[in-house]
């Protein structure tokens, strides 16, 4: 027993000795202490509850803790509150001290006078649940019946609290303060969560809508500049496929700068059925069926589609101090828009990618979903076995699939189910947010299966351009739709590599190449970053910009440039076949074909309007704006610059063949005469294309109220692109089956060329421009006309508006190599109409005058080895005799037709005139401000029924 007691006592002693030692070992060293939120003013004879003072302790390991004096057992040297004046108290803990200086003021003797008015001054009216109300320090303003007044705290005035507010739960409540005979009631709101006590100095309303208001309006006295949209005040659009996010932010100014907080708001919803109608405010019940409002997001229902909506979005003042706002109008915004059915609201590039319904296989990498090809099997979320249909590509979300802030479901589930992508912000394209399959990689250099061969072809096509060869890896893979072995759908396959974020190959699979699977149509080399069969683009005056040429992405060093044709015709022709958008034709139902529209958007490419031919290879490497295979597409109120070519309008034949999935028939050109595609530019402005604004492979273009200026080559190349080029006289081709343009007189078309520009040099067209000048100047002078314009430097240039040709390769090759006759024929036409639809100029590649004249020319045996231009302006035709007429002076009677007058020419090296002034005047009367030159680029005997090329330019009076 004694032994047990002894052991017990020893243990006790050890504990009393050791434990403090242990705790002192664990005890941290105090670096500093401070009193939190100290009161610095007291009334004489007040008392300070030192135990409840909150102290913040900072330790040498930089950790902190907040405890009361009592909890810390800190020592306090107390202040003397018995005298008026300055005083202080000191708190000591852990060897550190903190002194608080205070002021002791006289205690007012509470007045017993009758109170006339009693008001609270700047009283806080918002409290968080369970927040303490400091009643003693609420400031009151009082006027007495004797006319005197005072402003001081509740305590100082001797007022008392009659009713305490209940802050235990959210809602409206109040407190009452009594001073002598007067009771003051103050209403307050108790809210869940924190209350921003600092003053909001400004509201940053969502920039995209402010941008829209700024861009969509132009003062009536302000002239339209190139940066301005042509159409102003087009309605803002919002889709109902996903949420519309409108998140105002409040700005609070702090000592170290400004802070932004997302504000709580509430909305009043008003609706009208048409743009002209009056808004009607919806009741709460009606609103609930129209839109779901949740934390600054608005999800519209199907019933909202087509309606014009006005949201009055107000800042919820219960949460914030808005005393800095003098005007109520600063506390709310009116946001007006029209709801687009199945419109998908886009806030960034990833959201925009949802329009890529024809590139599901590759974009599945970005959307993080599984993809199943035709006839493959998969198990759905309910465990059911599903077989993918023919011509179907199925996206199946998984746990990590992407879902954006505005979306109710996975992003991949919106693909194929939207009508329009609607921008609510401007986007600068990031190559890292595009499928890796779009780009050449180091893998391709290793001769890896089929793509290895393709890389080699590309590399070799850039022989002589080592800088471009170095730039292939990381650039867009041109022509990757095609495979080197292209003998049918089954064997024509592309291999797709799956690459993880470490840029390591993790798998592969193949898919039928060269086909838009769901359209069952074979594609050529053209590619789009965003490729769709049905989705429109609505910009809301926002912009999409390609990063500057040479600007590499952050992570993978990719560029949005493409350096080589897949099948190089010549090393000087490395035309990029990548466009920002690609539209392909699909059928809606029956005979109704999908129509497309791109509108109210600014677009910037990465080609410079450049003329340094030494860098021409790089300037051709940038993006096009749109590659169009659609039958009907409109560009409305689009403002674009700096693309390689703005639009490639690709039309081969009857579009119903596409909808039937018969690509062979489509590409054969069958039916083209009757079913040409139409591309409409309406109130659209294009500037600074490196090549052309529109390249028409057949197709019709309608240009209305638009401005197209400064392209490096002709504004329009209109190619009658039958590569077989077997146009013979008995096939009865019409110009309507070829490429054609109809333009109104409001549109401005300018592409001034001297012929020295790099585009002309690359495509060996320089000599044509200079030759035209030397041949045409004398004849036009004789009618007081010229087609030259001078700039400020007095340089002469010709406005090359359009060139009507067969396939450009065939011009340069000198004809169809497979045809013994080397026939070159061109269909097409350029028509200019006034506001009433009256035709001002109608230039057709086949017309009776041309046909008759050329036949007649041949009868004379003229050796027309050089240009023999026939010119037309309005209804005036003329012929310029070639300089090498060796049969003597032509007999005027042989050449004069009812429509035709010979102007002048060179015979035996001498100028002559074979016409009279009456004919000159008649020519001038019928001429307009446009001129078309029909001229041959080869021996005239090779194509006796039509000229080869039509060139359209301006015609000016000589000043």
């Amino acid at each position, binding site marked *: 027993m004694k032994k047990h007691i002894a052991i017990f006592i020893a243990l006790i002693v050890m504990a009393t000795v050791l434990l403090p030692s242990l705790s002192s070992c664990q005890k941290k060293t105090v670096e500093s202490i401070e009193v939190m939120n100290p009161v610095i003013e007291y009334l004489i004879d007040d008392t300070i509850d030192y135990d409840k003072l909150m102290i913040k302790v900072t330790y040498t390991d930089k950790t902190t803790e907040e405890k009361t004096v009592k909890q810390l057992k800190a020592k306090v040297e107390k202040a003397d509150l018995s005298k008026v004046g300055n005083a202080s108290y000191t708190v000591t803990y852990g060897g550190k001290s903190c002194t608080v200086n205070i002021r002791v003021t006289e205690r007012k003797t509470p007045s017993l006078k009758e109170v006339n008015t009693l008001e609270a001054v700047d009283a806080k009216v918002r409290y968080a649940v369970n927040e303490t109300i400091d009643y003693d320090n609420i400031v009151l303003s009082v006027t007495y019946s004797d006319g005197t007044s005072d402003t001081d705290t509740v305590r100082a005035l001797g007022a008392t609290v009659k009713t305490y507010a209940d802050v235990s739960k959210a809602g409206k409540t109040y407190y009452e303060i009594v001073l002598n005979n007067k009771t003051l009631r103050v209403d307050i709101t108790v809210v869940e969560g924190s209350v921003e006590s600092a003053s909001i*100095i*400004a*509201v*940053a*309303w969502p*920039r995209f809508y*402010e*941008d829209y*208001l*700024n*861009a969509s309006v132009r003062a009536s006295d302000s002239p339209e*500049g*190139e*940066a*301005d*949209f042509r159409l102003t005040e087009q309605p803002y659009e919002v889709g109902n496929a996903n949420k519309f996010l409108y998140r105002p932010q409040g*700005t609070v*100014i702090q000592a170290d*700068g*400004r802070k*932004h907080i997302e504000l709580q708001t509430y909305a009043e919803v008003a609706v009208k059925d048409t743009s002209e109608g009056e808004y009607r405010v919806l009741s709460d019940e009606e609103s609930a069926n129209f839109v779901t409002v949740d934390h600054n997001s608005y999800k519209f229902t199907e019933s909202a589609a087509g309606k014009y909506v006005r949201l009055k979005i107000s800042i919820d003042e219960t949460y914030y101090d808005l005393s*800095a*706002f*003098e*005007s109520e*109008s*600063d506390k709310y915004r009116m946001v007006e828009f029209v709801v687009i059915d199945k419109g998908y609201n886009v806030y960034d590039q990833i959201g925009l990618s949802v329009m890529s319904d024809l590139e599901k296989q590759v974009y599945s990498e970005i959307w993080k979903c599984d993809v199943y090809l035709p006839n493959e099997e998969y198990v759905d979320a309910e465990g059911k076995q599903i077989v993918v249909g023919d011509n179907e590509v199925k996206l199946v979300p998984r746990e990590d699939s992407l879902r954006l802030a505005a979306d109710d479901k996975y992003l991949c589930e919106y693909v194929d189910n939207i009508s329009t992508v609607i921008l609510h912000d*401007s986007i600068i394209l990031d190559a890292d947010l595009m499928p890796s399959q779009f780009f050449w990689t180091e893998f391709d250099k290793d001769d890896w299966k089929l793509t290895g061969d393709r890389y080699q072809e590309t590399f070799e096509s850039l022989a002589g351009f080592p800088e471009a060869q170095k730039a292939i890896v990381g650039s867009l893979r041109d022509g990757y739709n095609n495979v080197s072995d292209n003998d049918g759908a089954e064997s024509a396959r592309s291999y797709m590599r799956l690459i993880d974020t470490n840029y390591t190959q993790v798998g592969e699979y193949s898919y039928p190449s060269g086909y838009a699977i769901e359209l069952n149509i074979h594609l050529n080399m053209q590619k789009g970053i965003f490729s769709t069969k049905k989705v429109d683009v609505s910009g809301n005056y926002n*912009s999409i*910009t390609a990063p500057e040429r040479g600007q590499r992405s952050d992570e993978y060093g990719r560029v949005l440039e493409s350096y080589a044709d897949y099948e190089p015709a010549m090393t000087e022709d490395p035309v990029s076949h990548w466009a920002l958008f690609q539209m392909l034709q699909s059928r809606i139902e029956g005979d109704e074909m999908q129509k497309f529209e791109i509108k109210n958007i*600014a*677009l*910037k490419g990465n080609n410079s*309007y*450049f*003329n*340094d*031919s030494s860098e021409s290879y790089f300037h051709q490497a940038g993006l096009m704006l749109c590659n169009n295979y659609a039958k009907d597409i409109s560009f409305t109120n689009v*403002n*674009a*610059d*700096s693309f390689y070519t703005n639009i490639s309008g690709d039309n081969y034949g009857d579009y119903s063949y596409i909808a039937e999935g018969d690509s062979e028939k489509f590409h054969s050109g069958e039916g083209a005469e009757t079913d040409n595609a139409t591309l409409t530019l309406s109130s659209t*402005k294009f*500037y*600074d294309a490196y090549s052309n604004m529109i390249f028409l492979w057949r197709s019709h273009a309608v240009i209305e109220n638009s401005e197209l*200026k*400064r392209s490096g080559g002709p504004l329009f190349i209109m190619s009658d692109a039958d590569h077989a080029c077997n146009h013979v006289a008995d096939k009865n081709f019409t110009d309507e089956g070829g490429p054609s343009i109809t333009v109104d007189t409001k549109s401005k078309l300018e592409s*001034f*060329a*001297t012929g*020295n*520009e*790099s585009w002309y*040099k690359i495509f060996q067209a320089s000599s044509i421009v200079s030759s035209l000048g030397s041949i045409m100047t004398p004849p036009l002078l004789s009618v007081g006309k010229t087609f030259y314009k001078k*700039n400020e*430097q007095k*340089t002469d*240039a010709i406005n090359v508006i359009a060139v009507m040709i067969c396939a450009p390769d065939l011009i340069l090759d000198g004809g169809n190599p497979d045809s013994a006759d080397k026939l070159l024929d061109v269909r097409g036409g350029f028509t200019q109409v006034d506001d009433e639809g009256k035709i001002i100029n109608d230039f057709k590649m086949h017309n009776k005058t041309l046909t008759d004249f050329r036949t007649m020319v041949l009868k004379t045996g003229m050796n027309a080895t050089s240009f023999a231009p026939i010119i037309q302006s309005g209804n005036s035709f003329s012929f310029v005799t070639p300089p090498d007429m060796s049969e003597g002076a032509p007999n005027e009677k042989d050449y004069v037709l009812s429509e035709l007058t010979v102007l002048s020419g060179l015979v035996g090296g001498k100028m002559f005139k074979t016409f009279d002034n009456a004919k000159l005047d008649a020519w001038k009367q019928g001429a307009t401000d446009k001129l078309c030159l029909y001229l041959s680029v080869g021996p005239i005997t090779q194509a006796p029924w039509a000229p080869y090329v039509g060139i359209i330019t301006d015609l000016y009076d000589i000043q």
Partner: protein
Amino acid sequence: MKKSTVLILLVIFFGSIIIVGIFGMQAVPFEQRIYVREIVPTSVYCTYKGIDSGIELEIKDDEQGKYVMTTYEEGLTILIMTQVEPENSTVRTLKLSILNNTPENPIAEIGERGEIIFLRCASLHVRYSATDSATGPKLDMWIYVSKPKEK
């Protein structure tokens, strides 16, 4: 004419053809277009009614952009000086817009010299835009205006 003179003329004639053929002629675009890449604010001044010289305000910068701060008094006018890069941009004119003006009670208006004339005490969001392209650079600035301290 002496033979030597003819020879010299021929040498110059053919020599120039060769030289031009090798080096080419510099092709200057008929209409040169160098786009604005950046708009930079260089200084901001404010004046009030009855004060002739401007007070320079500090341009603050954070991840959300640039801003200045001042207090409101009658006649508050702000002038923002800007610089366009590159210096040889073809179109150097900028457009100044007020983004958060309320039509029913405007905060400020723009004077003839591009000065911003405040009509009441409220903060303002202004924008300078390049006028050479719809996608040209923009400079957004906030002018935070607080009430004057009570005297």
